[in-house]
């Protein structure tokens, strides 16, 4: 007696017919994506800074924002300041977790009541889709009027520049701005370094010399949690930036069809990863440990080094840990940029908000929250760890080696490269096979050999 046998054959036929009929009717309908969605409104270019009078002329308006949950402390300072400066504007912020934000923001921007101002994410999955579908307002006029193109933060705008068709980024029209930057490098446990008689590493060579010393002393040399598949790609990118010109990596990530991942530098970097793994420099079972668990263990004194980014610093006690850049200038990137919706009627109010985000005052707030601003002129760090991180960032920005993250380059790069690197480190594939597999996946999107 199964529940299904209760339906008589004739009724089953009727039901099946209904389902089939509705399917056929639907398939006969228009292609998905036609109709509905947001309508872009005429956006006037600005030629001078937005004045308080212009915004007052808007009358009582509400500015709707979608932001990453991590921005909540910053917004808590910025929104009241903005509302005080422009009393007729009410700012309404919706916070989403990062994963949630990048999964939904494109559809939200495409909806009839799109938020006026929202955060995207650099790369093809989110920003590329936004640009391609014409959902975000170009910001070149804003950048030139407000002087974003001068000063220390100028080069950080590059990842938000796109070609008109949304096919490559790094150059072209500006579509977003992020006030927050990130730098990659190495954290070290100061007490353990002293115990082992080691200096803080300043290059990959220094690190390579320190690793066997730590291993022989019975320590886990590098604490790594790679079950999310991305932590090892950060270590790889730190090494790869020293085995080739960082400029080439940036162009490859940007989708330049003349570039390739199958370079000697990348093979060398992958081989180094495999060697370190087989020497036990990442400890045992790193593929079964989450990145968040790894940083927690490192904070508790497990492991001598942790290769990661400035976003990990918040978990570490500033008195016990130090930070340094591994590559010359270090590898880094810009955090999720802010975009103005192309369907926003209150674009000038949004522009005034972006101006406040990019100000030195906000930069100091960002640093006080334990993150790194793109505007580094005139900000003061509190404590050694923050100063070291800020130094690494300034050096990166000045050296122009902010290459960005590999997963920006295609929507599936995180799993292709992350999974591939796990195989290389386990000795299941060669470094050559790894770079070829990555290049093959990249070519599907960017059309090169």
């Amino acid at each position: 007696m199964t529940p299904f046998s209760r339906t008589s054959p004739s009724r089953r036929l009727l039901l099946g017919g209904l389902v089939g009929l509705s399917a056929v009717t639907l398939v006969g309908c228009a292609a998905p994506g036609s109709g509905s969605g947001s309508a872009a409104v005429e956006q006037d270019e600005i030629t001078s800074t937005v004045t308080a009078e212009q915004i007052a002329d808007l009358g009582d308006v509400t500015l709707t924002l979608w932001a990453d949950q991590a921005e909540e402390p910053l917004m808590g300072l910025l929104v009241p300041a903005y509302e005080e400066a422009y009393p007729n504007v009410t700012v309404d912020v919706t916070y989403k977790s990062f994963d949630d934000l990048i999964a939904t923001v494109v559809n939200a921007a495409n909806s009839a009541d799109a938020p006026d101002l929202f955060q995207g994410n650099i790369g093809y999955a989110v920003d590329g889709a936004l640009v391609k579908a014409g959902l975000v307002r170009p910001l070149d006029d804003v950048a030139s009027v407000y002087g974003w193109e001068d000063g220390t933060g100028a080069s950080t705008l590059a990842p938000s520049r796109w070609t008109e068709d949304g096919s490559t980024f790094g150059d072209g029209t500006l579509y977003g701005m992020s006030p927050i930057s990130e730098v990659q490098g190495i954290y070290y446990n100061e007490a353990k370094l002293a115990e082992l008689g080691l200096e803080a590493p300043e290059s990959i060579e220094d690190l390579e010399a320190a690793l066997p010393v730590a291993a022989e002393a019975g320590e886990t040399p590098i604490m790594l949690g790679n079950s999310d598949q991305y932590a090892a790609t950060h270590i790889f990118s730190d090494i790869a930036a020293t085995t080739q010109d960082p400029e080439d990596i940036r162009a490859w990530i940007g989708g330049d069809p003349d570039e390739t991942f199958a370079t000697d530098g990348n093979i060398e970097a992958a081989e180094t990863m495999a060697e370190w793994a087989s020497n036990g420099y990442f400890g045992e079972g790193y593929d079964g440990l989450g990145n968040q668990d790894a940083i927690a263990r490192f904070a508790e004194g497990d492991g001598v080094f942790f290769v990661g980014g400035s976003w990990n610093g918040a978990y570490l006690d500033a008195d016990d840990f130090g930070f340094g850049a591994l590559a010359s200038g270090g590898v880094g990137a810009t955090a999720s940029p802010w975009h103005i919706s192309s369907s926003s009627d209150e674009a000038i109010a949004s522009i005034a908000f972006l101006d406040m985000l990019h100000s030195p005052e906000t930069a100091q707030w960002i640093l006080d929250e334990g993150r790194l601003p793109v505007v580094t002129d005139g900000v003061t760090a509190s404590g050694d760890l923050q100063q070291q991180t800020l130094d690494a960032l300034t050096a990166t920005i000045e050296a122009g080696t902010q290459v960005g993250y590999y997963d920006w380059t295609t929507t599936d790069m995180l799993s292709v490269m992350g999974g591939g690197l796990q195989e290389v480190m386990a000795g299941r594939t060669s470094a050559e096979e790894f770079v070829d597999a990555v290049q093959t996946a990249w070519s599907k999107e960017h059309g090169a050999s």
Partner: protein
Amino acid sequence: MAVTTATRAVVAGPRGRRRRSPATAYSWSSLLYVAPALLFFGVFVIYPICISVQTSFYAYDGLTVATPVGAANYVAVFTDPSLREALLHSLVLLVFYAALPVAIGLVLAGALSRIRIYGLTFFRAALFIPQVLSSVVVAVAWRGLLATDGPVNDALRAVGLGSIATSWLGNFDTALPAVGAIGTWVQYGLCMVLFLGGIVGIDRSLYEAARLDGAGAVREFRAITLPALRPQISIALILCITFALRNFDIIWNTTRGGPGTSTAVPSVYIYQDAFQNRALGQASALAVVLTLLILVIVGLVQLALRERSDVGARSRRHSGGAR
């Protein structure tokens, strides 16, 4: 044998008539009663399925107008070697997510129904807990249990098996069975409760008769309990197989399909295509194929487990004709 057939015929007689009557008294007004549920079902189940089927014939990024691509998405599903590998992983998981839970559930149900245990309700509830917990909670807990320095390895070392201790979820060779074991743990409670419910319905006199004939516990289980539980086993298998083939959250929250692709299953690729790669057409095609696969496997299981009652039905017709 003849007696049992006759008994079946007697039982089946009126039931067969009762079953036929609603069909003859079928009227459109009865549709009104199911209309709300049908509407709900239509809007939230049938309509999305139809949209998925439609989308699977397009290249669609969720934003710009989709372009029809014919069956290209389906061709990709059947030619992509990584998807073939993922399907293979699913078949391995069937053992852990369906076969093992049913077997363990049967043993536990048999034991719990035979032995008088104080606080039976407590044990029954405790063993059912894995089924109640959110799968994310389950995944996070097991990640800790199976870690290099987790309790599982500690236990192994304590009994002198330290040499096989490993990072169960991080090792290419053990990740798939480890993820499978989590599924077994989640599903066996459900099977057990289903079987216990079925055992309650078995006439106790059958057991007495068997005992008088000198049957032991194992014989009793095989001759009476197992055949009587056929419908419950069928339902348990359907639920477990569906769970196994569409399983996503446990794998995503423990290994993300890794290390490498050693635990990747079709639903991981569906998620990646739909929500990361914005390839909704490709994701829909894979989802449609997966749905059909689940229907086919579940159908086969149903067919296999219905065989005996079909024999009964045949002999029923036969005996009916003889009468």
